[in-house]
């Protein structure tokens, strides 16, 4: 006798321990199997794009901090690159090296957060998360040395950064890089070979790479499927063409592959920072105010600049009408676009995997809703 069941629809979020912020899903279950999912966005929609139209180009840097609040430096960098492209500003070399160091540190912090929360979603009661966040605190200390803020940095300015790193930053950075490698080794030892982690993440939420590309998904998610697409390598911005690093690829394109790619990429970021420290030279960290005034008036036109953010291609599209404020700012938010295939990943899967898959996408509600 076949048992007839009726699917049950449950609302998850916007307040839920593992929706990484104020994300909401309507999920339809049949037993433990997910039948349908509908994401609901907008619980953190703050209207940054509209507010940017009333602020000067330098003031907008503070708004970009608060979009993806676990990778503020990367947001700053993407925005500053767009402004520099729009206004034709030539950045000063020391500033560029400093912002490369800052953004790679931020990438490590972001990947650590992603890894920690993924394991939290897997059900580890906080321990891996706390170990990852402990290392993140050290990185935030480095940011405090650079700019005085922990997570909303506003460190970058058109043409470079707003102040030079203090003398004690460099030994601290050197120490910190060693600590990061230790933490990553520790995480790998305990987690990558753990049978429970492996059995729960292997083969779940597999996405073919053609589908990923068609859905505009970039970043670690795309690289976990074996597509060698890293803007730092394919479209080098700043001085990424002067450093060498390995591109981390995996073929499985499942949750484990995404986790693995993130963990490995932290090592590559450390490698990049080491090369930056070798190549950085004394000089001004930004052009003088004669060359790049406080109130920038870019020529009429538009520019789109994208960087390899911690979650994927992070792009800023700016339209200038020649005034001190942009006529239109648009953010190509990788977190939002990476969620395009959420339904494909979840439908047919188990309820227990729902938040693991969700965590493996690594999204940030500030960036999803802006």
């Amino acid at each position, binding site marked *: 006798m076949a048992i*007839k069941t*009726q*699917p*049950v*629809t449950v609302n998850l979020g*916007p*307040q*839920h*321990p593992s929706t990484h*912020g*104020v994300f909401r899903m*309507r999920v*339809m279950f*049949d037993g433990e199997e997910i*039948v*349908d*999912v*509908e994401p*609901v966005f*907008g*619980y*953190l*929609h*703050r*209207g*940054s794009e*509209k*507010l940017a139209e*009333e602020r000067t180009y330098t003031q907008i840097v*503070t*708004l970009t901090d*608060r979009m993806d*609040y*676990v990778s503020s430096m990367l947001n700053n960098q993407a925005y500053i690159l767009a402004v520099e492209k729009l206004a034709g500003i030539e950045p000063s070399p020391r500033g560029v090296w400093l912002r490369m160091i800052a953004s790679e540190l931020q990438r490590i912090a972001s990947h650590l957060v992603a890894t920690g929360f993924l394991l939290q979603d897997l059900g580890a009661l906080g321990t891996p*998360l*706390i170990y990852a*966040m*402990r290392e993140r*605190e050290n990185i*935030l200390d480095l940011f405090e040395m650079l700019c005085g803020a*922990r*997570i*909303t940095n506003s460190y970058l300015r058109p043409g470079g950064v707003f102040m030079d790193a203090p003398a004690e930053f460099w030994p601290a950075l050197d120490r910190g890089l060693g600590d990061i490698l230790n933490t990553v080794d520790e995480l790998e030892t305990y987690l990558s070979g753990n049978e429970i982690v492996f059995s729960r993440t292997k083969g779940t939420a597999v996405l073919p790479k053609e589908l990923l590309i068609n859905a505009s998904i970039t970043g670690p998610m795309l690289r976990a499927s074996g597509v060698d697409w890293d803007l730092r390598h394919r479209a080098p911005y700043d001085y990424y063409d002067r450093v060498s690093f390995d591109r981390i690829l995996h073929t499985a394109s499942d949750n484990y592959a995404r986790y693995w790619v993130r963990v490995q990429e932290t090592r590559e970021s450390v490698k990049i920072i080491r090369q930056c420290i070798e190549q950085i030279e004394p000089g001004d960290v930004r052009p003088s105010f004669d060359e790049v005034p406080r109130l920038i008036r870019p020529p009429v036109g538009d520019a789109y600049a994208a960087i390899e953010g911690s979650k994927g291609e992070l792009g800023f599209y700016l339209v200038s009408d020649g005034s001190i404020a942009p006529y239109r700012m648009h953010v190509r938010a990788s977190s939002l676009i990476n969620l395009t295939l959420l339904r494909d990943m979840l*439908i047919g899967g188990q309820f227990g995997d729902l938040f693991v898959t969700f965590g493996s996408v690594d999204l940030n*509600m*500030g960036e999803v809703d802006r």
Partner: protein
Amino acid sequence: MTGPKLIDPYGTPAGADPRGALQSITLDLDRTEGESVNKMKSTHLEPFPDPVLEVPDDLKRSVIVSSVDYLLNWARKSSVFPLQSGLACCSFEMISAAMARFDLARFGMEAMRASPRQADLLIVAGTLTWKMAVPLRRLYDQMAEPRWVISMGVCATSGGPYYQSYSVVPGVNHIMPVDVYVPGCPPRPDALLYGIMQLHDKIRRYSLNGQAAGRE
């Protein structure tokens, strides 16, 4: 014995293949939600007054009441369970406060409850949008009294950098009364800890004779 009603508001027909059906039947729900948001936006125009404590006169205090007060207030302040709910940037500083370096657990606060029924403290950590105001108010209503609210960061306090935005609530005190405001954008974890100390101080001063603790 009849069980509780479990009506499916989504109205899935039994037996029909529900795969992919969800998004076509939820527009009405979205409209209902939108109505409630619009209603909240049009009715919550003025901030709630901040709950001010009247410390009762010493003469009114009997020995028994004040020692019961002492025990009760001590217990309440020593075991404040925060609700596990973060809105925006500040939530990461809230998480940092619970992590190894700042360690909220020292004050017995690591028991972050996922369900509002069991929580005592709602830390509004981050920008509150009108769309989120409805669920947040519901969370507040679901919490058992006595309950406290900390408004963390300028976004929650007044709208902050998003003050003029079309979708941001200009201060969480429009939605619910707030006990402690923690300024900063975002406040450092130490600042949040200081705010929690202030809340402890406040809880200590309630009395059974006076105003009931943690009521709206």
